[in-house]
């Protein structure tokens, strides 16, 4: 299990890195925690790697007033440990308990994780719930895409071949917003069989705004708009949550495979969603 040969570029400046992406066979090497295993299995054989690890000033997690900004080279471990995330996005911290293991988090980057868009990865769901803004940079400029528009399918995103996800900006939640997160995987740290993530903004005892996403279930992490609209404007209630979960379980479209049936994943949506919503109500205070 050895990777095929490739050309190696290690630009020192962002402009130089972006210029190198004009070649369609180039792949960005950030943390490498998903790409390198695929290369070792020769499931990925890029002809050129553009190693961005030496680019300056991209390894930040910073408070930008209304939002927290996370740079392309911020490692999972750094994000996990950051005060900004702990303070404003406890849902991310909760999710990180389920994401890989420390040596992988030391090296892997959150932005790289999003670009890889594994259907069973947790953060694509979380970013959609948080409606994170993704800055995609290329030699010709930059554009901002919201997370709900970024994930297109299994390992498919809105990013173009010559673009790089340089920054993630996550707006701080409105007051009265609670969160919930639940996951079932074979082992802690494995890719999820089902992740359910939600935020609920409560106002005068009613749900003012619900955001619910799942991953591990459909081709990519998905916001469940029907569930959200069933929750919006309602008073939180056990029966409501059970009904919403039951509908969501029917609405998702999981694949059937040898070890994990589609029915099982639907069951997980049905089981986990009420727990997540209840936790969101409780943490909304």
């Amino acid at each position, binding site marked *: 299990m050895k990777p095929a040969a490739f*050309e190696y570029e290690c630009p020192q400046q962002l402009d130089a890195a972006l210029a190198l992406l004009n070649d369609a066979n180039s792949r960005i090497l950030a943390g490498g925690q998903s790409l390198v295993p695929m290369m070792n299995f020769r499931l990925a054989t890029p002809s050129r790697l553009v190693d961005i690890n030496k680019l300056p000033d991209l390894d930040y997690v910073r408070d930008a007033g209304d939002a927290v900004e996370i740079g392309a080279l911020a490692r999972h471990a750094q994000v996990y440990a950051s005060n900004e995330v702990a303070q404003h996005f406890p849902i991310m911290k909760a999710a990180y308990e389920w994401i890989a293991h*420390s040596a*992988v988090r*030391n*090296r892997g980057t959150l932005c790289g994780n999003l670009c890889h868009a594994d259907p069973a990865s947790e953060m694509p769901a979380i970013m959609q719930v948080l409606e994170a803004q993704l800055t995609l940079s290329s030699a010709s400029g930059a554009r901002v895409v919201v997370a709900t528009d970024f994930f297109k399918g299994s390992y498919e995103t809105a990013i173009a071949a010559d673009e790089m996800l340089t920054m993630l900006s996550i707006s701080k939640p409105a007051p009265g917003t609670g969160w919930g997160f639940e996951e079932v995987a074979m082992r802690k740290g494995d890719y999820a069989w089902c992740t359910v993530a939600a935020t609920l903004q409560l106002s005068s005892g009613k749900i003012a705004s619900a955001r619910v996403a799942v991953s591990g279930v459909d081709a990519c992490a998905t916001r469940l708009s029907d569930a959200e609209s069933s929750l919006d404007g309602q008073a939180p209630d056990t029966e409501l949550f059970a009904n919403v979960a039951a509908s969501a379980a029917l609405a998702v479209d999981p694949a059937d495979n040898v070890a994990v049936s589609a029915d099982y994943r639907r069951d997980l949506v049905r089981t986990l969603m009420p727990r997540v919503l209840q936790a969101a109500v409780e943490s909304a205070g």
Partner: protein
Amino acid sequence: MDKVAINLTVNGRNRQALVPPRMLLSDFIRHELELPGTHVGCEHGVCGSCNVLVDGKAVRSCLMFAVQTDGARIGTIEGMGADGSLHPIQEAFWEEHGLQCGFCTPGMLVAATELLAEKPDPSEEEIREAISGNLCRCTGYEFIIKAIRSAAQKLREGNGAAQTESA
């Protein structure tokens, strides 16, 4: 593909090498630097046997290319002890039977080193979490956990003694 010159520090010693870009750091350490204490168990980043310290952080050496370590500081288990003596963490693994076949051991030692640098008095759950990215098929982990607890105590006592001396 052209080889690339790299210059790095391994276990405190400066090393220079010409490496093909695709050479995995694990292969570089084992076969080029001839430090076989780092083991390769899966080459897809799951088992953790190949963990080494890169600039103080535990990483999978099968998921890095050697070329990426230009300028880096690398630590392997060969660099833990000195002059034929074992490091207190290695000592604790010996005393508490924290290894059987020894194949996962380098990764466990690296995980323990990183953990204890950050948390000198970890709880059992913190130890479990810290080594949960390292597969062991021999021990059932119990004695590894015990060894890390014991190592923590050794290091705390050792540091205490060092502080007393310097004071």
